[in-house]
């Protein structure tokens, strides 16, 4: 292997610092990592998956099965990178993977001697093992298999790079920037369509980039590209892979924005995920060369013929002075000729007995020695190829003569080409077999919005490619409404022969017994041999889908790009069928591996989901609140003083509310405007209690059920005007209740003239609770809030520090309490005014933990009790239900199962001792063995400052009748077993004197 002094599409004026396993590589701008490796004489790049066999560069594209490496280091470390599509850049550090202690001497290579034990399905057989009715054998194997599995090692560090996602819309998406893609884009663009042309390579031109520099192809590309670039309606993306085709004519692309740089600069993303909506798409994705199968076909030095030509002409790397090219088709002849013209001694071994005279003549003129009717029986060498055993073969690929040993540095193989129909298959299912080209293609169907063009439709000449692509481009544009003329086709020029002419179906060389000699690989990445397929067949695997899974063929990161056709060929032979009868598998996205980062985009960390903030959020944070998540909201949990922990802080805060006055931000409550002349009727239907008599200036607590009779939510609703109400919901259920209401109004109750609108953002809300709350609010607002002027469940308008507010008299804590509703843009102003004026009343903020303690003391239900499994009766709320009107859930709540007196009902628990009960603990009778689900569960728990003990709310079977009973509270997870006494859930001020005072 050597870099030629001239030629190639590399920029020799820009040398790059690139290394592999510490070895410096002679790289230039325009190189890939693999071309730099080959130029530097690196033939051993990796070790195979199962047998740890030496593997080198096999291809020059995305299908690469062997040259898989680690890239970069630290938090940018990337495993399983294909060296063939990794652009060389200054500072690129790569290392080998799947080898220990090193690539040259890999202990895992011993597996190759144990290969009889690692044949197809060995993994599944460990499930059975030698021990009857036992998984012991599998358990023993599992550790070893799991440790050995995989190739590269991923980093555990956070990815420091940015990834973007975006949408795009176009008339015609052209996938592939080779001759077909460029031509189709030209036709569609000329016709006036909005075109998006994407190419996974760094440059446009496709297979023409593998031609010698300065040929007719270069002029062709330049001419077409210049015209495309001049069109405003055409957008071109290189370094962009279309990896998925989905319903709704949606395509997923990934653009490698800065993968060719050492690190992304200037806040640029590493990769960008494109979701493209295209009215029509053209798949000009070319074809992938098929390997031939023979012993040692995985040795470093054995390569796809097209790749050998790419390295020679694009990267100026001659793979060897002594080259053998073996083929079953015409396409490899130009490879052999180019190698010979570059000074290599070339032997072309053609499995066909006859070859077209002009094809043969061209190669021989370049100096190629041609052996027809021969095949390669075995490639030989240690860690790289040294010689090739060539034998005469008959039409059935069996050896028919003596072995001839040919010394060789490189063995270029071509078994025909497989059109890259992956995207079509992802979208529409299985492709069909085309006997003429020996390949699977998309069936002709002009109605499909995704059409193949060029080589991927098995076009047999450059002229065919251009003619077909022009037609596809024009048709696609016309289908989107474009009316312009596509113009004349770009002229074709002379190329080497394509693979379809006289393609032989032979794909492997067998000995007289019908076996390949040595280890002959079909799937290089997963180490699946011909003998593995044979074994699967012997074990009865007749379905291609089963064969795939049993042998793991086609299931590696290359997804069978090289393996599928050869595997199907073997299956067909074994079953005595034709390939189409055996069938094929369906491709699924992605076409090539993509990073998780590209799929995630910005939606991770703090952008994983949007966060909802109260208008007072920054006040809480600046004043030392410890925040907690409540659904999408961030809420103040507690405000520690000095070194207080949560427990100390909430006990202090709750105690302060009971003795003085506290203020809490309850802006997170759901708030829904209910407007319209039928608003009262609407409320009557959604709530269990009656609303027809609620007067303006009043508010009422309400409970709503789901249609199945279980409690959905509760809250207070105030009547603001003749046709205006404002409903509050729990923080957790705000969106659900609004959607529920909208659904009913737009489907079942279209007769009601009612609108519901969320006003959660419009209004901030603060609860002010405690014996001094009235005095504080009267002082601040000047309003008369006396018991007579504003009794419980009434509201009034007032002003606080120049801001109009609405004050609701209601209590959630059992204290004298008010809720102040403030336009959210004034929330901070009013909050600060209250706190300022509150100094004289010892006003203190309190958080959700103290709020929880207060509501548990009072026995109010909240989220833990409204968990979707409880009924009105369970919660002691059945008295609210009106018997005079129907409401949502009124029928199904009467189901016998929900009326069962044994159902768990809400009780209070006084816990013995200093340890509080954990929520979720199970309840058992005092003399009962704690087993199973028990008699109920603890829903909410706290230390009660007012009672000076630990208390809890719980749902206990037949709870009301068990008041006074001693029970066990068992937390199986935490290993706690507590004693408790069943009491009324209203622990504090059950008569309501304080809140009604």
């Amino acid at each position: 292997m050597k870099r030629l002094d001239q030629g190639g599409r590399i920029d020799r004026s820009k040398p790059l610092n690139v290394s592999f396993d510490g070895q410096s590589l002679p790289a230039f701008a325009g190189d890939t990592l693999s071309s730099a490796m080959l130029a530097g004489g690196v033939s051993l790049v990796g070790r195979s998956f199962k047998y740890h066999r030496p593997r080198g560069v096999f291809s020059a594209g995305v299908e690469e099965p062997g040259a898989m490496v680690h890239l970069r280091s630290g938090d940018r470390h990337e495993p399983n990178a294909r060296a063939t599509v990794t652009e060389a850049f200054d500072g690129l550090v790569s290392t080998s993977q799947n080898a220990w202690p090193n690539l040259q001497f890999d202990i895992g290579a011993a597996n190759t001697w144990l290969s009889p034990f690692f044949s197809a399905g060995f993994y599944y057989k460990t499930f059975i093992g030698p021990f009857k009715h036992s998984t012991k054998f599998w358990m023993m194997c599992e550790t070893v298999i799991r440790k050995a599995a995989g190739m590269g090692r991923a980093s555990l560090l956070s990815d420091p790079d940015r990834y973007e996602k975006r949408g795009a819309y176009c008339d015609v998406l052209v996938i592939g920037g080779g001759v077909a893609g460029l031509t189709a884009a030209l036709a569609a663009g000329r016709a006036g369509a909005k075109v998006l042309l994407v190419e996974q390579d760094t440059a446009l031109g496709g297979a023409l980039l593998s031609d010698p520099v300065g040929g007719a192809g270069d002029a062709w590309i330049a001419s077409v590209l210049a015209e495309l670039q001049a069109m405003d309606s055409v957008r071109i993306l290189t370094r962009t892979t279309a990896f998925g085709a989905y319903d709704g004519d949606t395509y997923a692309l990934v653009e490698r924005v800065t993968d060719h740089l050492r690190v992304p600069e200037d806040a640029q993303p590493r990769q960008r995920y494109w979701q493209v909506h295209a009215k029509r798409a053209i798949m000009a994705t070319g074809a992938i060369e098929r390997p031939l199968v023979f012993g040692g076909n995985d040795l470093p030095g054995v390569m796809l013929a097209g790749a050998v030509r790419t390295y020679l002409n694009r990267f100026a790397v001659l793979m060897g002075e002594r080259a053998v090219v073996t083929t079953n088709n015409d396409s490899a002849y130009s490879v052999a000729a180019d190698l010979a013209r570059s000074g290599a001694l070339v032997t072309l071994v053609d499995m066909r007995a006859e070859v077209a005279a002009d094809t043969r003549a061209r190669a021989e003129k370049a100096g190629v020695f041609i052996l027809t009717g021969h095949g390669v029986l075995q490639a030989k060498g240690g860690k790289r190829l040294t010689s090739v055993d060539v034998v005469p073969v008959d039409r059935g690929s069996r050896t028919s003569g003596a072995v001839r040993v040919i010394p060789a540095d490189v063995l270029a193989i071509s078994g025909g080409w497989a059109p890259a129909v992956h995207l079509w298959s992802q979208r529409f299912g299985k492709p069909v077999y085309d006997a003429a080209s020996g390949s699977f293609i998309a069936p002709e169907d002009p109605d499909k919005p995704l059409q193949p063009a060029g080589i991927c439709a098995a076009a047999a000449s450059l002229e065919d490619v251009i003619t077909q692509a022009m037609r596809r481009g024009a048709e696609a544009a016309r289908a989107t409404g474009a009316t312009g003329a596509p113009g004349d086709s770009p002229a074709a020029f002379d190329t080497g022969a394509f693979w379809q002419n006289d393609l032989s179906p032979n794909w492997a060389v067998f000995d007289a017994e019908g076996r390949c000699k040595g280890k002959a690989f079909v799937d290089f990445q997963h180490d699946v041999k011909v003998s593995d397929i044979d074994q699967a067949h012997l074990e009865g695997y007749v379905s291609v889908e089963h064969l795939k899974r049993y042998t793991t063929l086609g299931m590696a990161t290359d997804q069978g790009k090289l393996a599928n056709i050869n595997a199907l060929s073997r299956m067909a032979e074994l079953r005595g069928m034709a390939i189409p009868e055996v069938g094929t598998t369906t491709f699924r996205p992605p076409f090539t591996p993509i990073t998780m980062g590209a799929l995630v985009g910005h939606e991770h960390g703090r952008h994983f989901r949007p966060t909802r903030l109260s208008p007072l959020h920054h006040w809480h944070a600046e004043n030392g609140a410890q925040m907690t998540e409540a659904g999408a909201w961030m809420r103040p949990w507690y405000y520690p003083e000095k070194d207080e922990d949560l427990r100390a802080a909430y006990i202090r805060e709750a105690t302060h509310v009971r003795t003085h006055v506290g203020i809490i931000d309850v802006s997170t409550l759901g708030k829904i405007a209910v407007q319209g002349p039928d608003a009262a009727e609407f409320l009557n239907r959604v709530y269990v209690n009656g609303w027809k008599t609620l007067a303006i200036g009043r508010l009422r607590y309400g409970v709503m059920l789901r249609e199945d009779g279980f409690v959905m939510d509760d809250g207070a609703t105030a009547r603001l005007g003749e046709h205006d109400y404002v409903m509050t919901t729990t923080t957790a259920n705000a969106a659900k209740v609004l959607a529920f209401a909208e659904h009913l109004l737009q489907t079942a109750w279209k007769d009601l003239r009612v609108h519901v609108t969320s006003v959660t953002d419009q209004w901030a809300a603060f609860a002010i609770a405690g014996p001094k709350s009235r005095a504080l609010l009267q002082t601040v607002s000047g309003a008369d809030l006396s018991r007579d002027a504003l009794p419980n469940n009434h509201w009034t308008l007032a002003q606080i520090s120049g801001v109009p507010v609405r004050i609701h008299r209601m209590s959630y804590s059992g204290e004298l309490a008010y809720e102040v509703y403030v336009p959210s843009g004034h929330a901070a102003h009013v909050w600060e005014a209250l706190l300022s004026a509150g100094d004289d009343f010892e006003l203190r903020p309190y958080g959700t933990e103290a709020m929880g303690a207060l509501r548990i003391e009072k026995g109010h239900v909240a989220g833990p009790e409204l968990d979707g499994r409880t009924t009105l009766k369970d919660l002691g709320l059945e008295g609210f239900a009106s018997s005079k009107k129907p409401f949502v859930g009124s029928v199904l709540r009467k189901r016998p199962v929900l009326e069962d007196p044994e159902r768990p009902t809400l009780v209070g628990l006084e816990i013995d001792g200093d340890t509080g009960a954990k929520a979720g603990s199970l309840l058992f009778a005092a003399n009962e063995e704690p087993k199973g689900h028990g008699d109920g569960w603890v829903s909410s728990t706290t230390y009660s400052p007012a009672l000076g003990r630990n208390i809890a709310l719980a749902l206990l079977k037949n709870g009301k009748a068990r008041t006074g009973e001693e029970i066990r509270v068992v937390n199986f997870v935490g290993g706690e077993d507590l004693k408790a006494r069943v009491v009324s859930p209203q622990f504090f001020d059950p008569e309501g004197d304080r809140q009604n005072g």
Partner: protein
Amino acid sequence: MVEVRSPLRERITPGQFGAPGDAGVVLGNRTLAGLWQIAGWSDFDEAADPVLQALGLTALGSYRQAQQAAGVRAWRTAPDRMLFETPQDLTPFNSAALAVLDLGHARTCITLSGPIARDVLAQVIAVDTAPDVLKPGMFLQTGLHSVAVLVHCTGPDAFEILVPVTWAESVWDILFENALPYGIAVREAA
């Protein structure tokens, strides 16, 4: 009169951020002059007419094209709903036939402009933002970072995004994050 505090007050730091050079995107925040929703039922055309007249508008308009009059912007958000940005108090129009709702504190307006504004928008909403599709004067209601927003194209490369105030910081942050590669100029809140 007490100032309406922007939900982005603590978030906005005027200056230049992200990629160096000329900013591709200008981000800012504007407090609405007042935002009102009117909603009606089958006779919405008739019921809304007095409001339209008072605001200098002549018709309910379409669901894509915003309307403008002196000091007023209007968006037809549903067959029986409209949204107005206006300093006028529309409460007097509230009736059995027309539900009037003050949403002036419920939304804030994030402004997004600059030569790359459309690209940034394409990264955050699943709608075609091309100039020949989303033209000046058009608006759409969509999800941005899972938050329901109204996007109004106010110029060739200028947009205003009405965002619920409690979600505003998250929406601002995701726009900022997406705009960083193009260079951002953040304007003082207006």
